[in-house]
C-alpha cells in the first residue's frame, strides 16, 4: 500500500475518533434526526462539494480470490512485517525519516516520467529541481531541502495515474499478494513503473534479485516503522476491513488521478 494511503488512514482514524465521540449526544429517540427529516432533507443532503454525487460502486468480480489474498497479506503483516518493523523502531525516528527520504529521492524517475507522460510540466520541473537539490544539498537525498527550503512538494505520480489521466477506468478491484490493494489499471501501471524504478529496473545499476528484495523490504519496513498502527486500527474498527480498504483505495486513486 502506498505510504500516503497509510498516512491517510492514520488521520482518517484520528478524525473518526473525533467524530465518534459525538455519538454520546444521540439517544435512541434521536431528536436531531427527526428534525432533519421534517425539514424535508433527503436521505443524502445536497452536497455542492460532492465529486460526482453518485454512490461509490467498485467492480469486484473476483472477490473470493481477492479475499483470499487479503487474508494472506493480513497474515504476512501481523506475523512478519509488523514484528520486524517494531524491532526496527530502535533506530531513532529522524534517521528513519531520512531513510524514507532516500528511497523517495531514488524513486524520482518514476514520478518525473509520469509527470512528463501527462504533460504536467510544472510537476516535472519541480521533480527535477527537487532531485538535483536533494541529491546535492540534501546529501544524496537523506534530507528534503527541496520541500523545506524551496517549498516544492513531491509530485506523487505513477503509471496507474497516467493511464487514468488518459481515460482508463479502474477495470476491476484486485488484491495483489504482498503489494495489497490495486485494480486492473493500477496493476498494469505497477508493471510499467517496474521498468522505470531504479531499484527494480536493470536500466540503472545491476542488482541481483536478492539485493532488490532486500532494498524493497527495507523500504517497506522503514515505512511501516513510521506508521502508527493504521492497519490494526482499520482491522479493529471496520465491520468488514476488506470492504473498507477496497472503497478507500478506489476513492483515493480517483482523487489522485484528478490532481
Amino acid at each position, binding site marked *: 500500500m502506498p505510504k500516503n494511503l497509510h498516512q491517510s488512514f492514520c488521520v482518517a482514524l*484520528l478524525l473518526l475518533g*473525533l467524530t465518534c465521540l459525538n*455519538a454520546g449526544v444521540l439517544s435512541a429517540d434521536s431528536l436531531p*434526526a427527526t428534525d432533519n427529516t421534517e425539514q424535508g432533507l433527503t*436521505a443524502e443532503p445536497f452536497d455542492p462539494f460532492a465529486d460526482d454525487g453518485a454512490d461509490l460502486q467498485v467492480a469486484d468480480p473476483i472477490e473470493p480470490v481477492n479475499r483470499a489474498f487479503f487474508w494472506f497479506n493480513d497474515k504476512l503483516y501481523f506475523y512478519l512485517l509488523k514484528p520486524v518493523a517494531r524491532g526496527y523502531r530502535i533506530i531513532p525516528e529522524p534517521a528513519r525519516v531520512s531513510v524514507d527520504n532516500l528511497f523517495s529521492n531514488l524513486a524520482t524517475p518514476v514520478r518525473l516520467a509520469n509527470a512528463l507522460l501527462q504533460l504536467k510540466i510544472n510537476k516535472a520541473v519541480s521533480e527535477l529541481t527537487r532531485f538535483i537539490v536533494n541529491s546535492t544539498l540534501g546529501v544524496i537525498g537523506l534530507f528534503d531541502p527541496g520541500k523545506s527550503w524551496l517549498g516544492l512538494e513531491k509530485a506523487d505520480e505513477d503509471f496507474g495515474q497516467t493511464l487514468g489521466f488518459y481515460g482508463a477506468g479502474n477495470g476491476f478491484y484486485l488484491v495483489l499478494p504482498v503489494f495489497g490493494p490495486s485494480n486492473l489499471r493500477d496493476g498494469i501501471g505497477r508493471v510499467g513503473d517496474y521498468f522505470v524504478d531504479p531499484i527494480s529496473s536493470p536500466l540503472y545499476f545491476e542488482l541481483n534479485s536478492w539485493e532488490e528484495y532486500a532494498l524493497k523490504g527495507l523500504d517497506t519496513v522503514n515505512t511501516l516503522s513510521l506508521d502508527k498502527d493504521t492497519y490494526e486500527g482499520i482491522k479493529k474498527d471496520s465491520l468488514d476491513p476488506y470492504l473498507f480498504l477496497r472503497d478507500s483505495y478506489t476513492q483515493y486513486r480517483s482523487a489522485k488521478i484528478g490532481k
Partner: protein
Amino acid sequence: MSRPFVLFTSLVLCALFVLPASGWAETRAIDDVRTTVDEVLTVLRDKAAPTEQRREKIRGLVRGRFDFALMARSTLGRQWKNASKQEQDTFIELYSKLLEATYIGRIEAYTDEKVTYGDEKTKGDKALVETSIVTSSVTIPIDYKLVQNVTEWKVYDVVIEGVSLIRNFRSSYGSIVEKEGFSGLFARMESKVKELEQ
C-alpha cells in the same frame, strides 16, 4: 471642505468598515473548524490530565461541532428510505455506539502533528474548509464539509486525501445491507460493539 461632504464621507467610511464588520460577526466555517481543532489539540497535549477527563472534554468539543445524526443518515444513503422508522433509530443508536466504542482510544496517538489551514469555499449553506496535517514524513490534506445551522457551522463529512469517510462507509454498509439485510447489518454492528467494549 464642506460640512455635508465630511458627514457624507464619514457615513460612507462607516458603511465600509462597520457593516462588513457586523457581517463577519456571524462565524465563518473556517473559524469554527479552527476553534474546535485547536481546542481538541490543546486537550490532547495536556498530558498531565487524567485520560478519562481528557476524553470527556474532547467528547464535548466534538459533539458541538459534528452533526452526527446527519452523518449516520448519509452513511445509509439510499438505504435510509428503505429502512423503517424503527430501523433508522436502531441504526443511529448502533452507529453512534460503534463509532464511540471503536475510535475513542485511537486519537491519543496523534497529538503532536501540526495542523495548517488553507482555503474556505462557501456555496449557499454549505462550506468546504481545507486543512492539512503535517507529520515528520508527509503532509496529508484534510477537507471538512460543513453545513450552516442557525448560528454556527457543523461538520457533516471529512475528506482525507480525496477519501470521503461518509462515502466510504456508505459503500461498505450498503454492501452488507444488500447481502444480509438490516438485520444482518445490525447483528454485525452489535457484535462489533460488544467486542470493542470488552
